[in-house]
């Protein structure tokens, strides 16, 4: 049982203010720890906080599978997966710093409150020294803030909003997943090649912060190559039936529809758009096109055949043929019988990266881990050469532009990789206006 809490700072402050008036209990154990939840025994506990109920439960389940796999590999069980291909070789399959890895799980319910409650119980009750997971930006940002205050490391799961490593970035938080800006930067050249420079786009955007950052990013990138933007329409989250938003599109003069939706909204708006026959239409003498900037293979299944021929971007796809991806797909597929999703891949990487940073830094102290991760360059995790940038704790790596397959061969075979956009092309300055307004602050070890 761990015996320190996120409360040491408060405690010191308390004693200073309240002074001698308070009688402190004599059996007082939080003196020894140097940081929150310092692992004392032969084990170390990680907290896997994923959605297990609600709309993203399947992605959460896939994340959990990848976490279990990562823990197995770290503890030297199984075939080692991407540990064998990872460029850093300090992990030896004997846990982390010789401590066996244990884990606790919790349900974020894709709600900030529930996610924070779950993360808190992992920190306060189970002594987790690192929290990871999540399947939406709102939750990621909320939990990242909590981890910063509590003094543990947060390794973000699936979060695509610019804000996670932009205006809401935190010193204790790290993101491996790509973001809306990168999606836009990767997609724009491909769209230019496919559809030309004389196009007018119509945006349907989920009316919340992730949707807005994606709309902003895509509109900026496409306008830079000469496209016009006809209209940006905000749709309520979970609208269900998008017909009244899609029906006016054809009459607006636009010839490309950009769906800034994710999850269930993406499935429904795309299904509706195809049902309206938009893709068979001609506008301005050109074929009408639909773009879905952020693809998730798990979710795309819900749209069935409707995804065929529609372009978008993704963080990773199981059909990649590099050694690392193959090793991961083999190890995951053998254990569970189907290929991993991009959510599974990113959280597996995050777990390995954390473990590796601890091993290289020689300590579980969040500040040592953060220092080891900052500016860390690595390879062999399926995305090619990757940099964990020190300024904003964002990973910079290649981005995949994918297209819905016309003739899928299996139920997993929905997307095909069209282009791998090199990291250099999606890299932006740390003070880019879309990411401005926040500060990392100092790393907080909690004690």
């Amino acid at each position: 049982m761990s015996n320190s809490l996120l409360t040491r700072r408060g405690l010191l402050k308390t004693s200073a203010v309240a002074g001698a008036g308070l009688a402190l209990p004599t059996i007082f154990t939080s003196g020894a720890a140097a940081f929150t939840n310092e692992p004392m025994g032969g084990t170390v506990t990680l907290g896997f906080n994923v959605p297990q109920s609600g709309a993203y439960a399947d992605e959460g389940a896939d994340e959990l599978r990848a976490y279990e796999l990562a823990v197995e590999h770290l503890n030297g069980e199984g075939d080692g997966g991407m540990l064998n291909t990872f460029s850093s070789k300090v992990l030896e399959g004997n846990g982390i710093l010789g401590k066996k890895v244990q884990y606790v799980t919790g349900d974020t319910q894709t709600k900030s409150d529930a996610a924070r409650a779950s993360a808190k119980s992992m920190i306060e009750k189970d002594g987790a020294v690192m929290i990871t997971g999540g399947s939406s930006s709102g939750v990621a940002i909320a939990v990242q803030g909590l981890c910063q205050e509590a003094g543990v490391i947060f390794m973000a799961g699936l979060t695509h909003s610019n804000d996670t490593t932009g205006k809401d970035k935190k010193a204790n938080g790290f993101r491996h997943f790509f973001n809306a800006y990168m999606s836009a930067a990767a997609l724009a050249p491909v769209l230019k090649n496919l559809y030309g420079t004389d196009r007018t786009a119509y945006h349907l955007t989920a009316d919340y912060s992730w949707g807005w950052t994606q709309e902003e990013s895509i509109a900026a990138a496409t306008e830079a190559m000469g496209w016009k933007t006809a209209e940006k329409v905000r749709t309520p989250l979970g609208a269900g039936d998008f017909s009244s938003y899609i029906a006016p599109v054809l009459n607006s003069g636009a010839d490309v529809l950009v769906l800034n939706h994710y999850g269930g909204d993406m499935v429904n708006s795309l299904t509706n758009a195809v049902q309206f026959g938009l893709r068979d239409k001609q506008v301005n003498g050109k074929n009408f096109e639909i773009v879905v900037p952020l693809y998730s293979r798990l979710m795309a299944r819900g749209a069935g055949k409707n995804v065929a021929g529609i372009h978008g971007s993704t963080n990773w796809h199981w059909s990649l043929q590099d050694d690392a991806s193959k090793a991961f797909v083999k190890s995951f597929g053998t254990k569970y019988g189907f290929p991993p999703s991009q959510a599974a891949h990113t959280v597996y990487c995050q777990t390995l990266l954390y473990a590796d940073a601890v091993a290289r830094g020689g300590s579980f102290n969040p500040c040592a881990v953060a220092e080891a991760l900052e500016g860390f360059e690595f390879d062999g995790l399926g995305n090619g050469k990757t940099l964990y940038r020190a300024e904003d704790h964002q990973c910079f790596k290649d981005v995949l532009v994918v297209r819905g397959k016309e003739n899928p061969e299996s139920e997993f075979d929905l997307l095909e990789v069209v282009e791998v956009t090199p990291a250099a092309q999606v890299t932006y300055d740390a003070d880019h206006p879309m990411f401005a307004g926040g500060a990392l602050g100092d790393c907080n070890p909690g004690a």
Partner: protein
Amino acid sequence: MDGILLQILNGLDKGSAYALIALGLTLIFGTLGVVNFAHGAIFMIGAFCAVTLSRLLSLSFETVDPTKTDFLGNPATIKTPYVEAWFGPEFGGALIDWAVPLAILFSIPVMIVVGYVMERGLIKHFYKRPHADQILVTFGLAIVLQEVIKYFYGANPISTPAPEVFIGSFDFGMMLGFDPNVIIYPYWRLVYFLFAAVIIGAVFSFLRFTTFGMVVRAGMADRETVGLLGIDIDRRFTIMFGLAAAVAGMAGVMYAPILSPNYHMGMDFLVLSFVVVVVGGMGSLPGAVAAGFLLGILESFASMNEVKSILPGIDQIVIYLVAIIILLTRPRGLMGKRGVMEE
């Protein structure tokens, strides 16, 4: 003008979905006086009838094809649906393609059984209990049903397309003399609208023109007197419950191509359908239908860019705003009866 016409069309379609759900809910909630929080779950089960049938029809046997490999590099297995093997690829393929319309036939008996079991097994014991207890027990039931579906089908939406022939849209505007592409309307939505009209008509004529319907209407008005006449009103109410479940279930089946079914879709529709029923007025079937169409059309209007630029965010709240205005100007909703659930 064209924009308004377009949104009326969309609104009719949305409205027919709301009206169908509200119709079933009113049969139970507005007439039997049971606050059924599991009604959304019934709608959801209906949608999953469509999923189940399309899965049943595509049940396949596997043959190994050595020329292809699966994602692990092992020889791939090719799946051939039994129906294609039995009836030939053409007819078998068509069967699979038409899974959703066929699912209506499949769903009616399933939903009646679901409704019957629910009523006899659980709701029956709660007729005399306070509404608060009904809410708690049916909410619990809804969660349980949801979790069962989630266990079998997962949490992600499942693609349930309409038959191939209904994909795409026709240019309604051209027929009326507008420019091309101004008013387009998907075939499946037209089907859905007509289907809803037929169902609504059928339920109304059933209650109006059959003896059974007459007795049920009498029972709604005065249960005790009908009971005193020696009529087994309870049994008829059970049948009504089954009927309501069937209506909601069919609404779910037909909605599946528009909204890919997922396990929590019932909860998403639950609040909305209660609002529709109450705005229509407790105890009034025509009220529920009218309110469904009214709210559907207003919601479509609110999502027009012209409206949104004047009142940002109005499409998010229009239904609730209208509900408040109607309830304040008409104390018992559009066509509510005095004294039904007003205590």
